[in-house]
């Protein structure tokens, strides 16, 4: 049962990722990506990472992709050109590079000794939010504070870029 759910979520993720790259309507691209991220949230949940599944839906699909959608609608983007149109040589090189990288990673995955995983020990009782939250404010405190600094800097930068006319 769990295996079939995983396979279905993986198939949905791959198909809609292809659509997100190939389709020429930018709004449909963003909406297909929303479905990809929901499928990935399902996979996170299957692997016992309930906190990450929630974060994936709330932050990625809910905040980041809605921001993308706002910008796509704000900028009145015309229909995209056909994938790799106009530059056949560079399109060929890019496709070869993508196939090479994908093949390399697949080969690496195939060479690793296969094994089952497990949900985090002790996480089954209360979810992973508690251990992750504890680790964030104890062993990973510096990185956590650094992320808050990064987000503040990103807000300031976005306001600055959005307000000012570039010369």
């Amino acid at each position, binding site marked *: 049962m*769990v*295996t079939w759910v995983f396979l279905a979520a*993986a198939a949905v*993720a*791959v198909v809609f*990722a292809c659509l*997100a*790259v190939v389709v020429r309507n*930018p709004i449909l*691209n963003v909406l297909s*990506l929303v479905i990809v991220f929901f499928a*990935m949230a399902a*996979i996170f949940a299957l*692997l*016992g*990472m309930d*906190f*990450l599944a929630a*974060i*994936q839906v709330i932050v*990625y699909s809910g905040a*980041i992709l809605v*921001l*993308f959608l706002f*910008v796509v609608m704000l900028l009145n*983007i015309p229909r*995209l*050109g056909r*994938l*790799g149109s106009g530059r056949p040589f*560079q399109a060929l090189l*890019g496709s070869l*590079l*993508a196939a090479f990288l*994908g093949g390399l*990673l*697949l080969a690496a*995955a195939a060479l*690793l000794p296969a*094994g*089952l*995983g*497990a949900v*985090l*020990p*002790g996480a089954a009782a209360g979810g*992973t939010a508690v251990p992750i939250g504890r*680790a964030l404010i104890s062993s990973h405190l510096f*990185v956590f504070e650094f992320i808050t600094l*990064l*987000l503040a800097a*990103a*807000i300031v930068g*976005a*306001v600055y*870029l*959005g307000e*000012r*006319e*570039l010369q």
Partner: protein
Amino acid sequence: MTAELVPIPFTWVLALSAVLFAIGTLGVMLRRNAIAIFLSLEVMLNSANLAFAAFAYRFGAVHVAAAAALDGQIFIFFVIAVAAAEATVGLALFIALYRLRETIDVDRFNILRW
């Protein structure tokens, strides 16, 4: 409490991450619209997240490395936070560029080229 086994080989998750990474690379290489490139970049970032998840899932099964499994999930959390910051600044940049040139076709922006 013993770890609950989930009957999915972790290499499957890794293979899915590889396929998504290739699709994202294809989009970054072949698209010319900056927003479409950025969307493909998000696919690549998420495939990296999936690889983190695969290894965290695998090392959760090895009892000694339970802390490593938690570290993998915390890394995904940080990647999502950085992706949020990156999307904010990148999209603000695209809006500023659109005001300048009325387009966000990356082929039209060569002012940094010598």
